[in-house]
């Protein structure tokens, strides 16, 4: 605020301000709700002086003029052959920004909001933070207050491009070469993607029906009717009211795409060798096609770490099948015994074929003969759908006949695909009889000519699953293992993240949407190239490559988007990293009540004196001793006693119960009827090193002193 005022008072203090003045004078003026923010943008884009001109021509012309001197300094940032105007504009304004920053750096030392909870800032980064802040809270000279842009669509379009470059390019001005190289590429991607109304389907999320319908038409209406002057920020840092709908829609879509992140690298990965998951998908679809089309008996194991895309690959393979096989989905987590699994197979067969396969309870003879009889209903697959609806009395075969189900699978009139989730757990069932039967069936299927094909697909994340199989089962298993993997390069990870953060917003080519898309894209780029963010993500990536973690990491910043902070920030990512990544043990213990803190300190005392296991009586004894010592020599400050506060045994006991409920104190002996509550033995989950910051933060001196006594 201080900064802003000062600059406003001295608009002539440097060359930038002069240019601001000049550019602001050049445009017509009307609306008082003009934001300081927008004026900042206008300063950076002199093309505003000619808003009616065709967008591309106008901007490029200005670009060449203004950046001519700087091209000599930094020729490497972009190849001259890049046809995209957007990228070039971006670059130029980036330089201009830098000019401004340099000047402002000299004048503005007031605002230095260097919030860096992680402490990764080196001295090199500090000016950067300052600069960024400076730009955001850009001073608004008096003249610029009145600037307005004509309402016509070309004006909107030109602003669109101007808005967009402003946000992203600051890094190239001072950052390392690596960052400079990445930006032209990403911008090119962004530009190639966003202007077309129906870009190539880049992620599964695009398939969602929401994408095909217009986004918040009411807002668009309002824009065209009464808003002459549309910009992104109405107040200093608050998003314009009209754009709240866009922000909300963006939030929604981004959350959707986060829910469905694919770990499969796409985009510029063509030149390299195809990724693990691509080849896995190819192998798997070949295998399934073999079963469905050529009636093969197949078995395979899909092996890969958690959330590496096993299920996704399988589902996509199943989705593209020409005909619908019978799908039997079993999970080792649910079907904990073979009997359960058989029952479940029976139920699913019932649902998918429409009638009970095995004879009902009314009779009788051998299952084999019945199979012959029951075959006929399935010859006509068209009936199936109607049958499911009609067949009101679903009946399961009696449990004594369940074992005959598996051979029947081969005789059905459609190919069968058995999916065994948590395959390793099935291998732990006694005698592995289900696996044996299934895999035996697969082998028989090869032999018999009339079978329609069966595939058994296991999914697991356990590496030694094949070794778990018994010899007779293993010999029937094809041994084919298809591996999946999470993204294995940091760049892949970042690309996945970029894709997740930039879902295609809407199918229609409304100007406002497009404008918003550009702005958002630029913001995402800015976020993802921020060295602090990259550093934090790199740190995360080095610990775990689980895509789910990325999803969780990004969800909080997306959720916290609001009109006053409509873009992703490092700060919100930090908060998210703290809660989602490796959760510190004292995360929730920042605000404990006084008795709870006393009990924690007492437990630390017990621990340091060699008794990690304690009873309530012991803790109370420590507390009483300390209280006695504290009140024996009362210290008065300003007439108030700053000694320990008295606390009755019962209150402490109630708090103790609370700490047990939150598992801060864990009981080490089993519950016993003849040990009373205060003599139960507990140990504390919070170590001294965790208790200390909690107490320090509470700011109670006597508690701190008491804790430091425990050595």
């Amino acid at each position, binding site marked *: 605020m201080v900064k802003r005022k000062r600059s406003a008072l001295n608009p002539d203090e440097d060359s930038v301000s002069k240019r601001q003045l000049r550019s602001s004078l050049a445009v017509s003026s009307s609306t008082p709700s003009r934001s300081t923010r927008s004026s900042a943008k206008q300063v950076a884009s002199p093309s505003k002086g000619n808003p009616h001109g065709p967008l591309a021509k106008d901007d490029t012309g200005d670009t060449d003029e203004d950046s001519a001197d700087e091209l000599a300094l930094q020729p490497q940032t972009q190849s001259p052959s890049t046809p995209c105007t957007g990228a070039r504009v971006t670059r130029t304004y980036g330089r201009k920004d830098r000019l401004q920053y340099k000047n402002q750096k000299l004048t503005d030392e007031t605002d230095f909001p260097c919030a860096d909870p992680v402490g990764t800032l080196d001295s090199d980064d500090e000016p950067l933070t300052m600069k960024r802040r400076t730009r955001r809270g850009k001073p608004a000279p008096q003249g610029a207050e009145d600037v307005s842009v004509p309402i016509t669509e070309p004006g909107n379009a030109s602003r669109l491009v101007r808005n967009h470059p402003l946000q992203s390019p600051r890094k190239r001005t001072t950052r390392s070469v690596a960052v400079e190289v990445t930006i032209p590429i990403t911008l090119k991607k962004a530009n190639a993607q966003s202007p077309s109304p129906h870009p190539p389907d880049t992620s599964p999320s695009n398939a969602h029906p929401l994408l095909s319908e217009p986004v918040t038409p009411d807002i668009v209406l309002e824009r065209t009717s009464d808003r002459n002057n549309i910009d992104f920020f109405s107040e200093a840092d608050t998003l314009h009211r009209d754009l709240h709908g866009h922000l909300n829609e963006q939030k929604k879509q981004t*959350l959707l795409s986060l829910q469905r992140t694919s770990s499969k690298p796409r985009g510029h990965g063509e030149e390299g060798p195809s990724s693990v998951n691509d080849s896995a998908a190819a192998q798997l679809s070949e295998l399934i096609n073999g079963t469905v089309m050529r009636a093969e008996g197949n078995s395979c194991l899909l092996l890969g770490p*958690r959330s590496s895309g096993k299920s996704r690959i399988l589902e996509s393979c199943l989705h593209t099948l020409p005909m619908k096989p019978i799908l039997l989905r079993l999970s080792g987590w649910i079907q904990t015994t073979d009997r359960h699994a058989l029952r479940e197979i029976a*139920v699913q067969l019932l649902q998918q074929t429409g009638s009970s396969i095995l004879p009902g309870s009314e009779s009788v003879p051998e299952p084999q003969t019945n199979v012959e009889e029951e075959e006929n209903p399935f010859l006509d697959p068209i009936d199936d759908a109607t049958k499911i609806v009609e067949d009101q009395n679903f009946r399961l075969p009696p449990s004594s006949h369940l074992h005959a189900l598996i051979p029947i699978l081969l005789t059905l009139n459609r190919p069968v695909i058995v999916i065994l989730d948590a395959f390793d757990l099935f291998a732990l069932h006694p005698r592995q009889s289900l696996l044996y039967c299934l895999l035996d069936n697969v082998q028989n299927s090869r032999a018999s000519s009339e079978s329609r094909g069966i595939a058994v697909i296991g999914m697991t994340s356990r590496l030694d699953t094949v070794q778990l199989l018994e010899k007779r089962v293993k010999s029937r298993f094809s041994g084919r293992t298809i591996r999946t993997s999470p993204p294995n390069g940091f760049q892949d990870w970042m690309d996945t993240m970029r894709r997740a953060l930039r879902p295609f917003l809407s199918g229609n080519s409304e100007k406002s949407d497009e404008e918003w898309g550009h702005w958002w894209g630029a913001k995402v780029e800015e976020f993802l190239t921020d060295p602090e963010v990259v550093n934090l993500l790199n740190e995360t990536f080095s610990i775990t490559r689980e895509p*789910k973690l990325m999803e969780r990491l990004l969800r*909080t910043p997306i959720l916290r988007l609001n009109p006053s902070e409509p873009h992703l920030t490092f700060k919100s990512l930090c908060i998210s990293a703290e809660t989602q990544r490796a959760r510190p043990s004292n995360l929730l213990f920042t605000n404990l009540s006084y008795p709870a803190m006393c009990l924690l300190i007492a437990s630390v005392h017990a621990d340091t004196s060699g008794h990690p296991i304690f009873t309530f009586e*012991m803790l109370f*004894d420590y507390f009483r001793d300390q209280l006695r010592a504290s009140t024996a020599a009362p210290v008065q400050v300003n007439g108030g006693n700053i000694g320990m506060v008295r606390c009755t045994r019962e209150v402490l006991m109630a708090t103790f119960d609370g700490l047990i409920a939150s598992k801060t104190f864990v009981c080490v002996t089993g519950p016993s009827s003849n040990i*009373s509550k205060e003599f139960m033995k507990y140990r504390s989950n919070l170590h001294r090193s965790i208790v200390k910051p909690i107490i320090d933060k509470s700011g109670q001196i006597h508690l701190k002193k008491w804790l430091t006594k425990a050595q």
Partner: protein
Amino acid sequence: MLPVPGYEQFCDDLSTLLSTYPPSFIYVQDIESIRTTFNVIDTVLRDVSQATPPQNTFKVHYVRVDAISCFTARLFFETVINTLVGWEPKWEDGCTNWSPENELRWNENLDTFLHGLRAAHQHLCQQHGIGATDKGKGKQREGSYDDVRFVVVVERAERLKENLPDMIVPLTRLTEMARVDLTVIFVSQVGWEHIRPPLGASPDPYFMDIQGISKDNVAKSLISNFSSLSVSEDILNNPYHPALASLYTHFITTLCDICFPFTHDPQELQYIAAARWPGFVKPIIDAYKQQLDEQMDENGLEFTPPSEEVRMRLIRYFNPTFTSALEALLPRLTNATDWAKANEPPPNLLSLPRTSTASTTSTSKPDSSNIRALPRMSKFILVASFLASTNPPKSDIRMFGRGLDEKKRRRRATAKTSGKTKSGAPSKIPQRLLGPTAFALDRMVAILGGLLEENDVDTRMGGLAKEFKIPGEYTDMEIGRVGVYSNVIELTSMGLLHRTSPPDRLDGPPMFKCAVSYETTLLLAKELDVALNDLLWDPM
């Protein structure tokens, strides 16, 4: 309904998530005020489930499952599905569960539960006209939902680990298993790391943490509850009359100043406030009633809120009772109604001298009066058994033995409980703090003899004493009486002693354990005039 102060961010996040695209598994952790969190989550879910298409294109159906009450899988399944489809079992129908069209029984095991979930989803989709009905029209009607979304909230999820350990993994993967739009929310005081099943079987949840609620926010939320507590217009029967709202604000602020350091749970503070407030405003209401009586006017006079001066007097007068209310009500030594009755202010409070403050009736422990009524021998037995439980057996001869040389009693050398001994080994914790140990009945009887000989001989009648020549012979006879043994049995049945050996064991003496606390024993010893602290092996 307004969100509880301090929960705005959480409410915002949760409702945004649930009305857009939530993660399949959310974990909410709150350490100190979990009941408030339950209410907040319920409010959010109710709002989300009532939202109509422009705001929320998903029809949300939700269920709150308490893992304490749903202690078997079947209870769990039935609660979830019956609530989701809005089915209430009725006694007249034989309490049947909701049944889908195909009459599949869905409450037997997890497989059938999943089928039941799918059937419920399908049923609700049909009910809301989602899916099949839109096929012919090509485009969805305006104002219709896209899909039905289930939200399953499991409260006190840590209990699952004990009651339904097999359910945790399927619940955390419920979305992928049921293949319907579903979100599971675990709410717990305990961290996920304590519940997480081994081998990475569950996916990690999306964590939402509730940071401790601040004092200002607690006060705000308590004050905002005032209007909802108001029951009638008549101020004489309604201490929560709107005219008293400003006084209540000051009352709550003072209450929070005093009690908030001790507990951060808004519900506990509300409980204390509810116990104190009627007594607090009673003088004002009484004064008003008196005015009414004096005026004898039908219309009555307008109730005026108390002046600043009266307010200060009230707060000063009642200040000490806040602490005593906390001490009695937080551990639930008594209930709010009884406490309020016991601590009603005197009728003429406003005419009392200004410096007076309320005296509080101390809530005595319930068992102490029982113990006082015990016969004298039983008291001795209790003291003896406490000594037997606390002192190590080896020390008995030193504490109670009486040789000819009259060796002085030597107690254990005084060692500080904290810190270590010279050899570096941790110092021993007094047995008094570790809890009673079991003792053989014979040993206790011997100690009883020692106690009686020292403290009880003089009270006996002198007449019989001639028969006993040897010192201690009379006491020997006393402790050999059947009465002592029957007293022991009686005390055991009263729960003051615990028998640790099985009753049908024949070999060896029966083992007991003392079940009265040090404080109670001290009380007894004072009555019996026994110097208990001198007889304890561990120095106090």
